[in-house]
């Protein structure tokens, strides 16, 4: 399997296998998907680790992400520059964390980062409101959203400071065993 393709060297594939939850076949498939987004820009040969970044507007067009209400936040969380422009490493990292075999702890950390819209390291009331807004679209009125956000804050905020830290979030999510199966994108 390893000597038929020329995209990656064997040691590169080993690296990917050690650092992500994918096998070498899946890595190659991911590379194919990455390349399909912009065949003129992304080279076929990745043995020299070329520094190619795709803009977020292009990655949004993927069918797995197109309709996801959190797609921009996901891209921003995994991108190096924070703007949503992904290199191939970021791309693989994204789908690795969102894969089936990633452990719950890792998913919780990244989910926390995704839901943190103002990127202050905490989920404050505005973050929760924005989450509810993205989830329900325009179905709920502004006051209703605020009410939901306040109730969420009261339920989950254990130290009573008005915002959720990672520990509060972890404590809450660890009671939902289905989080692993819902926070998962098949690629």
């Amino acid at each position: 399997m390893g000597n038929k393709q020329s995209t990656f060297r064997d040691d590169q594939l080993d690296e990917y296998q050690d650092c992500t939850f994918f096998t070498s076949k899946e890595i190659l498939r991911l590379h194919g998907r990455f390349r399909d987004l912009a065949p003129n820009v992304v080279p076929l040969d990745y043995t020299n680790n070329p520094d190619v970044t795709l803009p977020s507007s292009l990655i949004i067009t993927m069918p797995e992400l197109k309709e996801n209400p959190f797609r921009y936040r996901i891209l921003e969380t995994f991108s190096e520059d924070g703007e949503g422009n992904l290199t191939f490493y970021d791309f693989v990292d994204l789908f690795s964390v969102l894969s089936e075999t990633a452990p719950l702890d890792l998913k919780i950390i990244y989910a926390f980062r995704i839901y943190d819209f103002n990127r202050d390291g905490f989920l404050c009331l505005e973050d929760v409101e924005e989450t509810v807004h993205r989830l329900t679209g325009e179905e709920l009125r502004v006051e209703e959203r605020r009410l939901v956000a306040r109730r969420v804050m009261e339920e989950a905020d254990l130290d009573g400071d008005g915002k959720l830290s990672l520990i509060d979030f972890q404590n809450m999510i660890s009671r939902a065993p289905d989080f692993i199966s819902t926070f998962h994108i098949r690629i």
Partner: protein
Amino acid sequence: MACSVDSTLDICQAEQDSECSMEDENDTSSCMDNDFETVEMDFVGHLIKHNWVDEPAEKITLTRKRWSAATQRVLSSMPSRSVEWTGVAAHSSPRVQSQASSNRDIDKDRVPQRKHLLATLQARSVAECARMLRSLPLSLKKKREVRAQFSCERGRQETSTKDSTRSHFPSWLGKRLSGAQQGVQSLLNSVQLWHEALKQVSGRFGTGVLSYFLFLRTLLLYNFILSMITIPFLVLPQVTRPSHGSSNKISFTGLEILTGTGVLTNSLMFYGYYNYTDGWRPGKTEAYIKGTYNIRLAYILTIGIGLFVTCIMLIYSVFKTLGTSSPMSVSHGNLALKVFSSWDFKISKKVYVQQLSENICTHLKVMLCELHSGIPKRRLMTRLIWLVLHCTAWAICLTCIFCCVLGIYRFSHDRKQFSMNLISEGDTHWLILPLLVCGVNHLIPCVFNMLAWMESYDSFNLRIYIAIIRNLFLKVSMLGVLCYHWLDSIAAGKYGTNNECWETFVGQELYRFLLMDFLFSVLDTIFGNFLWSVFTRKILRRKRKPVFDIALNVLELIYGQTLAWLGILFSPLLPTLQIVKLFLLFYLKRASLMMNYQGPLKPWRATQMTTIFISILCFPSFLGATACITYTMWRLKPSATCGPFRTLSSMFLAGKEWRKSLEISNPGLAWVSWIYMLLGNHIFLFIVAGIFLLVIYIHIQVGDGQRRVTTLLQKQIENEVEDKKFLISKLQTLHEQHE
């Protein structure tokens, strides 16, 4: 419903505003005045339990508006505010907030952190390192650097040790083993059957419906492995040495495929064809000609090993799913969990995304409503009526099941009496019993559905569980009465059957049942589902398509698989038939799903349900089938005129025979016969069973203990929260006193 929700929300909004004003007045000093012993420790719980209208004053919050700078300094330097990844790498590393220039990782203080990380990694083995590296929340680039540094250091360490040969071997072995494991894993991953199709299904219908198709794929795997064991050792040797069957030519009509009689009777499909005429000399029953294939032993061993392997795989998957599902059940109406974990990231079609949005919105509104007004307490009269209704429904269900079972039992006996007279009329009468049973299996669940609709359960999950229990009970009783009929009546020849080969007859029965079940599923899917969806849309005028009933379909799969396992002794090619059936069923169900259904409206707890279904597959289904097969092999006398065991009084005796012949021919292999004697010893089997049960008991107790510890720790967290609030407010008041 919508109107009442809106009005309640308005009321709540008014209350909210009044409370806010109260909050400003009662600043943190009020905490001091409250008696902490009387305040409920369960901060989250009391908001849900207590009615918000009655006791708003008990709510204790810390408002940040009046905190002094000193308090805020103390708060911001608390470890809980600065811990980034706890428990992930089994150590916590402090993180400096809000000055990180890079989006992903921290730049400050990285060098001591990196050293700490490397030290931890080096203390572990290769496989554990890889696992730990994967679960670090760093970007891929940083992980590569860590890995490069780490392997560099490790390489340096290994070359520097003097006794390098001794330290090399375990690491070499570790590398080979992990490589082998990777190889097996990649092989399993590469055979990703139906990957694209499953993605499409999950994209449109979500995780719940996906779990049905994954279950189907798992069953396919089990049958495949079973076939791989039986075909090379049982079927192929028989193919190479065809037995001298009946010489009269039987014409082939198409009906034989359905009934399994006629041409198929004396074929590879059924038990009767398998024999060892080559090695058998009349009169010299114990002496085997050397070099002939001992088909008796092969029969017992392949079926035994096949079932054993299936058992191991089932128990492994039961334990795996038990491990992932959380033992703590979520109390209903947990709003925060709903907000953060209800979005299914797999759904990708716009229409279904909108539907999911609407569902979540409705749930949130309903939850808010329940939280504000509480669950209405039922009056005594309503409760009584509810109880009576439930008892009636259960009584109707049990009566239905009992009547069906009795009917099937009587019919099967009557059929035996008629069969002798009706043989000349062709073989189609054999199809009546399977037809009846399949009809019962498909129609009675509709009755149960109607009863459940009449009962109108409050909780969605409770309805699912009750439906599963009722249908399971029905199917188990059906299979029970059929097994009794086959093994007791037919095998013992109680009804004077002139079937010379009862095993082939039972095999044919199971073959017919399997095929009839498949035909019914096909017809039900094509006509039933289509007609029902047209009915709901045109006549009942519902806006949405009907919902795919996951539980019922999974139970049907389990029923079919039980039939296949029961039949493997009498018809070795039955698992292969089951593979073909599952394959066709997948495409059929998927097509029907796309055309007629929508995803489940209420959230489907996929993990919990998968555990339940795998457990049902393991315990009643597989265990029952194995028990029947063991009973057949042990107690029942094989028929005298057909099959490989024709001269013995029990199938297990073939093993004894082989042991004796082994002693004569190869004394060197005496240890094999010793092992066999041990296995046949009752006391040894009891001891093994006892040890097995002990291990299971220990695991259950350990799991139970862990659950208790978790609950205690949760309680401790809540107590610590109260302590913290107390201390902070104390700090604040002290500071204010000094100002």
